[in-house]
Structures are given as structure tokens and as C-alpha cells.
């Protein structure tokens, strides 16, 4: 196709930066588990399996290099969650950060929610670039002076200091989830947020940590009858009473909190009828939705299942308005992918700032972009080989059969250990963050 990328037929994606260790020996704790831009795009947060959060800040655009947008450099690093032991169940609770969500900025400080399987925490990230000096009663090191030596009165004065970024936990929302938390979503009212686990969704007030409201509960009375779990949930970007949750059976339910306190009855049920020609024992597993994201406009939502990305119009429940195949060539390999468990991989998806392009990850460190307007798609790769600064990414192609052309990769050569599960798109600009197993790649369009 003409052009190399999504976002219009003339967007070319260039390598910008890569963060993380170079060596192939991946430490378990360094595995990136979530990536999220804040609302302005100035900050980029990542969470990893070791329970750490690393926040990158975009430098102001340099006048020397007008071709480049600002680079992202480490702004703050902190240990968000520690491994815990549940003594009642004799089970370890992983410290892996499942999701990070930023709160809209209200004042000088930044706030984000981070969650592991059981506990959500509200973190305040604030800058300190001044400190008081010249205390009357204290020495510079903090020790109190001998009162008899104090003969004058002076008031401390703020003096500039090196910038220090502090992260402090302001709230801990614990003990509300029996099952593993898979999603958190901040409401547009900026006062509440939801957290979803496999069977329940809870509504919290950001100020109140000892109470939450259960708004969805799909746990059956008899657990033997359990056949469906919640896989993702999100609040509508504009309507504070509306949220959606997806299931392992490929359905999405939209709920209105005004209707009742417990939203077990959905307002809308989005489900595409199954294609009988594609039916197999794996049909249900590959229909399980791994991610659901509203468009910025709030008119559409996107779901990711194992092989495809679907765009739904909130006004039409019967089927998606658009379907994009991410890696259809895997359909004939489902049995092997079931055997090696790859079929259970949970890929995320994201929208660009104006909802014209969507992006999701795949295997072999490939990621895909689909331009909704121009009906184009492209496959790109996040690898060290194509990581020369400002080098344009070359589109990749997977050979599905027949003669393999030059530069194509055959399906059997794909590395299924190199999977891109987490991607994020800057809210305004064409800057994307793509997480491989333990590296974070930042790409931007060629200016």
C-alpha cells in the first residue's frame, strides 16, 4: 500500500528511543506489565512484574533539533507494590502491576492509580525544587540549636534546590477483591473509579479507602456452574454513569449505574453472532476479549480478542462496525498455540488521539496499526536491529503460504516468546510506546 503507516497514508514511523536492558537474559522482575500516557502526554508510566513503577517525562522540544519531539527521560521510579502472603489461603500475592491509570491533573502534583492482583494504590507524584533555609531554631542539618545561643529572630527563606521528584502513596484500597483485579478505570467525574476482577466490579470513591460498592457480580451460587468471567472494564469517557465490561465469552455489557445499585442487568449487550464456518473447539477461547477501550469521543469502543480487533458503535449491539484481523495466519495454528498456552495471551489495544487509527500488538515483537479512515494497515517491528535514531521503520510482512518473498517471515519462524501485549498512544501527537518483554520502545512519526 502507499505510505508506510497508519495515521494517514503519509505517516512514517521512526525509532525514537528504547528503555531497558539490552541483554537477552530477561530478569523476571523487569517484565513490563503495563504502559500508560497521562492526559497531556507529557508523562509515560510503566509498571513491571517486580511491582515497580517507572515514570518518564518528555523533555521540552529542543530548539536545536526541530525535527525531533522531546525525548522521554526517567522522571520518577518507585516501588508501588510488594509481594504479599495471604496467610488464610497460603498463597502468595504477586506484586506485578496489572494496570496504571492517571488521574486528570488538578494542581501541580500528578496522581495515578496502580494495582496488582488485590490492592489498588493512589500515588501522588510531586516535584520539589525549593527548600526552606535559614531556620532560627535549627541548624542546617536539622539539629536543634542550644536555645541560649538564639539571640535574633529570622524567618526561613525558600531557596532553589535540585529538582526532586517524590512519589508518596496517598491511599491504599485493599481487601475488596477475592479474585484477581484485571482493570481499573477512573470515572469522568474524577471522584470515583472502578476496579474489576474475574467475577466482580467495585466502585470506589478516591477519598474513601475502607468502603467500596459492588456494582457487578457474576459469581454463580454454585461455582461449578461458572462458565464466564469478566476480562476487562472501563468507564465511559464522558458519561459518568456508564461503563462497559467484557467477558471471556466474547460479549460486552454496557451498564448504566442510574438504573440500579447492582448492575447485573446490562443496559446493552454487544455480541457478534458466531461464524459457523470457523467453528472449532477453540472458538470460545479465541473469542475471549482481552481488552476493551472506549474511543476518545465516547461514540465507539474497541475490543481485542485473540485474532482480531473490533470496533463497536455504542448504538448497535448486534455486530461490530469494523473488524480488523491482527494475525489471521494463526488460525490454522490454534492447536499448537493452545498447547504452548499462547492462546491465552492477553493483548491490549489503543486508539490514537483523534480515534482515526487503532493499534495492537502481536508476536515476534510485531505490532499492528489499522487506519480506519484510509482502510490501511501496517505491521511494524520493535527490535534492536531497527533502532538507529530517527530511522524509519520498515513495514513487515508475514508470509502465509506459498513462496516466501524476500523480507517476508514465514509463520513458522515467528518467535512466540516475543510478544507485544502492551502499547500506548500519546493523547495528541503521533508518539507511541510499545513494550516488548522487558524493553520499552518509543516511536514517533517523521516530522
Amino acid at each position, binding site marked *: 500500500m502507499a505510505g508506510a503507516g497508519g495515521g494517514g497514508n503519509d505517516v512514517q514511523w521512526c525509532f525514537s528511543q528504547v528503555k531497558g536492558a539490552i541483554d537477552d537474559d530477561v530478569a523476571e522482575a523487569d517484565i513490563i506489565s503495563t504502559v500508560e500516557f497521562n492526559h497531556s502526554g507529557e508523562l509515560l508510566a510503566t509498571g513491571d512484574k517486580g511491582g515497580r513503577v517507572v515514570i518518564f517525562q518528555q523533555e521540552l522540544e529542543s530548539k536545536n533539533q526541530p525535527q525531533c519531539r522531546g525525548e522521554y527521560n526517567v522522571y520518577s521510579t518507585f516501588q508501588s507494590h510488594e509481594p504479599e502472603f495471604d496467610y488464610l489461603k497460603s498463597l502468595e500475592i504477586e506484586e506485578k502491576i496489572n494496570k496504571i491509570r492517571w488521574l486528570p491533573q488538578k494542581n501541580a502534583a500528578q496522581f495515578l492509580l496502580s494495582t496488582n492482583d488485590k490492592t489498588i494504590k493512589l500515588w501522588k507524584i510531586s516535584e520539589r525544587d525549593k527548600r526552606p533555609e535559614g531556620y532560627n531554631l535549627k541548624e542546617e542539618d536539622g539539629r536543634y540549636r542550644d536555645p541560649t545561643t538564639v539571640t535574633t529572630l529570622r524567618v526561613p527563606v525558600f531557596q532553589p534546590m535540585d529538582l526532586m521528584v517524590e512519589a508518596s502513596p496517598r491511599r491504599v484500597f485493599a481487601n475488596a477483591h477475592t479474585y484477581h483485579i484485571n482493570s481499573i478505570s477512573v470515572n469522568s467525574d474524577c471522584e470515583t473509579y472502578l476496579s474489576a476482577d474475574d467475577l466482580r466490579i467495585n466502585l470506589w470513591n478516591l477519598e474513601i479507602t475502607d468502603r467500596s460498592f459492588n456494582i457487578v457480580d457474576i459469581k454463580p451460587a454454585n*461455582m*461449578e456452574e*461458572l462458565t464466564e468471567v469478566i*476480562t476487562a472494564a472501563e468507564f465511559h469517557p464522558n458519561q459518568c454513569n456508564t461503563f462497559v465490561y467484557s467477558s471471556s465469552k466474547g460479549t460486552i455489557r454496557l451498564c448504566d449505574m442510574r438504573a440500579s445499585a447492582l448492575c447485573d442487568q446490562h443496559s446493552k449487550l454487544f455480541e457478534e453472532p458466531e461464524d459457523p464456518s470457523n467453528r472449532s*473447539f*477453540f472458538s470460545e*477461547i479465541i473469542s475471549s476479549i482481552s481488552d476493551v477501550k472506549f474511543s476518545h469521543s465516547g461514540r465507539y469502543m474497541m475490543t481485542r480478542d485473540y485474532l482480531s480487533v473490533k470496533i463497536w458503535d455504542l448504538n448497535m449491539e448486534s455486530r461490530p462496525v469494523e473488524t480488523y484481523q491482527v494475525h489471521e495466519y494463526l488460525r490454522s495454528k490454534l492447536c499448537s498455540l493452545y498447547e504452548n498456552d499462547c492462546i491465552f495471551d492477553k493483548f491490549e489495544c489503543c486508539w490514537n488521539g483523534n480515534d482515526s487509527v487503532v493499534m495492537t500488538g502481536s508476536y515476534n515483537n510485531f505490532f499492528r496499526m489499522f487506519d480506519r479512515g484510509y482502510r490501511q494497515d501496517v505491521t511494524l517491528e520493535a527490535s534492536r536491529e531497527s533502532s538507529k535514531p530517527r530511522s524509519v521503520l520498515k513495514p513487515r510482512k508475514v508470509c502465509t503460504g506459498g513462496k516466501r518473498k524476500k523480507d517476508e517471515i514465514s509463520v513458522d519462524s515467528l518467535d512466540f516468546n516475543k510478544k507485544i501485549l502492551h502499547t500506548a498512544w500519546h493523547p495528541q501527537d503521533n508518539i507511541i510506546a510499545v513494550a516488548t518483554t522487558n524493553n520499552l520502545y518509543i516511536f514517533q512519526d517523521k516530522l
Partner: protein
Amino acid sequence: MFPKGTKRKFSDSREEPVAGGEDVNQSSSAAVRMLSSYSLQRQSLLDMSLIKLQLCHMLVEPNLCRSVLIANTVRQIQEEMTQDGTWQIMTQALTQSLSPHPDAPTHTIDLSDLPLNAVHHDSLRDGIWEDGPLTCPGCAEGNRLGVSSPSPPHTSLPTSPSQDSSSGHPRAQSPSAHLRSFEGEMANSLGYLTDLALDDIFEDIDTSMYDSSDIPSALASYPSWVCGVSSWGDEGLKMCSSYTSASTLQQCLTDLNDLDHIMEILVNS
């Protein structure tokens, strides 16, 4: 794999060619070959899924979504196999291979009145923990059979009644019970995840000594019929070693048979 004298019908074509001497495919038609290949694949998928369900228990805290998806896959296969009759053929064949004593007692999976310390109960189902006492009233401390409900909790799946009624074998309870125990296993993998291993508090074996990859300790949380009391070592490893063996199903049931034997001895003593 089958005892001698069992006549194998050509629809029972899931057996690997090396296992027996009889040539499964009587006819050389392509349709039959396709059918047998499909049945083979389906059986292999069933075995693989059951092992995955078992391995689910080995993880620190199993992934509920994954367990549910695998369990649904097993149910699907089971339903299809029941519809085309292969399920019954398989259960009958397995029954015959598992009958050492003609007058061995019929048993169900209900273990509630057996005071066995070494046996882990399979009562990790949510319903029991939520509604009933932790241990059944007559059980002593340290007895980890906390099953308070007397009935075997395997009634949720539609396939079991049809197997019971259709089998005319005098020990018809056994094969269906065996198979229901697989259904129970699915329930276990779900119920286990909810209210959890309260029995671990009473566990004799200190699982912190073992890695999560250590199969024998992981099998510790299995219902006893899966691994049998004697299967802490090699047999357990053997069971989990490969996906493709069609004898895996049988292996589990063989171990169950060992358990029968031991239970018998203990009850009589």
C-alpha cells in the same frame, strides 16, 4: 493398552497405532481416515485440556479465566463425544481395563465418612465452604476431609445422567463416577480458586519446601482420586509428562483404583 480380548470397533480409532496389535481402520476410505484422524485429534485435545486443568492447580494462584476457558473446552469435547457415542465407548473400555476384582465395592467419590489423614479432600468447592462448616461434624482435627454434603457434587453437567442410565454393567457406577470425577475436577479447578485452600492450614507437608514446578507437591492439592495416595513420586511425574498420551486418562483412573484398594483396607481395619 486394552486388556486382551477386547474387540475394538473401528470407530474406536483414537488409539495410537503402536499401542495395540489390531489395525483400527477396517476400511481404506478417505472419509473413515479423516474421521479417525479427527477423533484422534479430539482425544488428544481432551487429554491436553485435562492435564492443563490439573496443572492449573500447580500454580501459586491459578488463573481463573484460563481455568474456565479450558474447562469449557473440555465440556464441549465431552458433549460432542457423547453425541456421537464415542464417550460411552471410551468409558466402557476404561471400565474394563480398571476392574481387578469382580467383587470390589462400588464406590462414588464421596469420601465424607473416611477418616484418612493422607488424603486431601476434594471439597474445595465454593458452595461447601460458604454454606457448611469447615469440617464435617464427625471428623477429627487434622482430618482434611471437610465434606459436609453427602451427595457427590457432580450433578451439574448434563452428560452424567445419560451415562448412568445407559450403562447396563453391574458396576455401572464406577465408570460414570470416574468420569464424573473429571467433571468434579473441573469444578475443583474453579471451586478451588475461590475459597481456597483452607485445608492447607492443616496440611502435613510443608509446601514451602517445594518449587511451584515440583509436581508431587503440587499434586498435593489434588483430589485423591487423581494421584492416589501412592503417587507422590514417579507416577505423578509420569502423568504430567506429556500431553499427547491417550493413556493419561487411563493412568489417572489406574491411580484411582489404587486408592480404592487402600481405602478398602483402611475401612476394613
